[in-house]
């Protein structure tokens, strides 16, 4: 604990804390700006009915982005997130179709699947030292291949889903979809764990400077693997929620969603170089994406422009990150020079 916070204090957050805060505020400003523009163009955008719909479409993405953050903080990527979501949704709902007695225990099965798939990712990246982008590109394919094989081109149809999962997907609490509340709880829980638990501090410490973390006696393998396991478990549970939301589940569920998830994480200010950013930022990034999607449909804009717009937002976010990182580095360097003198 103390070792970890020591590393953070010396090499990470403290030095460029201001710059990082600015980065987070930047996302909020960007979101407000988007909302202002869309409201001016289509006053309907600001209606409660529309805003709650935007939050609902953001919920799944926000949760998946929270999971991805655990990996990105260590300076790695998890491209297999969509495949983990799809595999879990298909397998679990296929099981409940044949064994309705499972009830809510299905969540436990999902957690188990996520744990195993996440651990495999972690193993490839740490023990086998495969660069994470390649390792998880591989598991993206392998996990998806597994579902295709398992599903055998069949669908789990909406009538086979346990009624309680469908009710959950359609439930509303205080005017918002239950998924929005689940996302809020999950994101805050992950946020609290990251800030308050030694494990969370270690993720930051390792990500901001793996070498320093090593000299402080932190096990890089343990940190990275637990990051992947956390991400895997969250992806699996989110997959379950997505399955219940979609209804008819085929082997392609959530394929390609990794790009959206990474976009949310990056736009939300989690540095792809690791070590900085917050899960709240990532969730906010998901809201930004959902806002862009919604606003452009409201404006009657074609799909191509949506992709263009989203791409620009990502590039802008990474460019700002690069700037912030340089700032942080300079601040840190100045301080170490000060210490030496």
């Amino acid at each position, binding site marked *: 604990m103390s070792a970890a916070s020591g590393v953070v204090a010396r090499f990470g957050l403290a030095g460029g804390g201001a710059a990082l805060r600015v980065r987070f505020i930047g996302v909020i400003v960007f979101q407000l700006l988007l909302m202002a523009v869309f409201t001016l163009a*289509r006053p*309907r955008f600001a209606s409660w*009915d*529309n805003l709650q*719909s935007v939050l*609902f*479409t953001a919920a*799944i993405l926000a949760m998946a982005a929270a999971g991805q953050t655990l990996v990105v903080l260590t300076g790695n990527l998890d491209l297999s997130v969509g495949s983990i979501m799809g595999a879990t949704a298909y397998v679990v709902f296929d099981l409940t179709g044949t064994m309705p007695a499972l009830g809510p225990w299905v969540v436990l099965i999902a957690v188990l699947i996520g744990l195993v798939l996440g651990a495999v990712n972690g193993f490839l990246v740490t023990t086998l030292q*495969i660069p994470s982008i*390649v*390792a998880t*590109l*591989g598991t*993206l*394919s*392998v996990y*998806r*291949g*597994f579902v*295709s*094989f398992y*599903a*055998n*081109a*069949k*669908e789990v*149809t*909406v*009538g086979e889903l346990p009624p309680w999962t469908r009710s959950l*997907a*359609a439930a*509303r609490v205080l005017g918002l*979809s239950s998924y929005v509340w689940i996302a809020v709880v999950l994101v805050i829980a992950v946020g609290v764990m990251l800030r308050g638990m030694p494990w969370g501090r270690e993720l930051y410490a390792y990500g901001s400077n793996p070498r320093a973390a090593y000299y402080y006696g932190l096990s890089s393998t343990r940190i990275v693997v637990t990051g992947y396991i956390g991400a895997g478990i969250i992806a699996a549970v989110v997959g379950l929620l*997505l399955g219940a*939301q*979609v*209804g*008819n*589940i*085929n*082997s*392609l*569920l*959530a*394929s*390609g*969603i990794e790009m959206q998830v990474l976009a949310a994480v990056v736009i939300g200010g989690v540095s792809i170089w690791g070590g900085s950013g917050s899960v709240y930022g990532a969730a906010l990034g998901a809201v930004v994406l*959902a806002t862009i*999607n*919604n606003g452009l*449909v*409201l404006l*009657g*804009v*074609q*799909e191509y422009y949506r992709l263009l717009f989203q791409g620009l937002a990502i590039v802008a976010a990474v460019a700002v990150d690069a700037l912030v990182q340089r700032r942080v580095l300079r601040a840190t360097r100045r301080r170490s020079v000060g210490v030496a003198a």
Partner: protein
Amino acid sequence: MRTQRQRKLAGVSVIAIAGMILAACSTTAPTAPGDDSGSSSSAESSGGDSPNPADIKIFMAPKFTGLAYFEVARAGGEKAGSELGIDFQYIGSDKPETTEQIATLTNAVPQSPDALVVSAIDGDAVAPALKEAMGKGIKVVTYDADAAADARDLFINQLSYELAAKTMLDAALLNSPDGGLVAFISASPTAPNHTAHVKIMKELIDTDPAYSSLSYVDTVQFAGDDATKSQQLALDLIQAHPDLKVIISSSAVSAPAAEQAIINAGKAGQVWATGFALPSSVRDFIKSGDSVAFALWDPAELGYVATIAAYQLVTGEITTDPGTVIDAGDAGQYTVLEGGEVQYNKPLMFTADNIDDFDF
């Protein structure tokens, strides 16, 4: 039994390939066709003088292999295959991507099938691969989604574009008898059938008195046969157009997903999604009363007719000349039209009255 083993082999090879290359490449090549003679009935050889049916090899290549709709069509193709006693194989990638389909088709050519039965993701993009196959004497029959007209011999069209458009608008009116505003979700701008359906639906709403109670949102949204994307678009469309009544999609993924999104949003009974969907994926909606009607055709019979047509092209029983009649036995007789198009044209409308009659 035999197909089960083949499938298993194919599945294992997917995983093996993916694992080895550690890349996004999982094209399922058909397993080596050396070990045949598995199926028992050596079939009645109808055309005694023409080549031995057992020597005829037909590959069916759907848009991609993960979709239940294509699996039903495959069953029809396999039925034709076993009746004819030919070597019928199902090939394809499990990703709905044009590049993957091009790879599948390109890899199929060296195995010298006698015919390819193809549903094209992108009609123009797969054309060069199909032309190469035709250049090697391979007959090409498209079903479900056509390729460029000069890159195939015949196109077995499930429903003429006009009939498809009318069927979907009829389904829309069954859901919302008073008509109202309609929005469209297509798979992609390069899916020729989806694009044609939407174009004709717009024309019909503009001109046909039967559909004058309908109006439409001009911008078409694209969901790429992805359920999540379809749901997000459905919700955003409902928000964009508060008076929206019906969302129509030619995609058997998008239509049911959009309906589920409507139900989740608590808007069932105010907005409806309809279009083409497998009865199994909409049975629940129709039984619960949240939806009144979805449409389709019998994909199994479509796959059957396409495979029969491919076989008869190979044996020379038929040509692609307009007026040629394809005799598909119990599945009916079909005449080749101008441009090599054959219209299957048997729409099915699923409602509470008949939804239990369908087992696919």
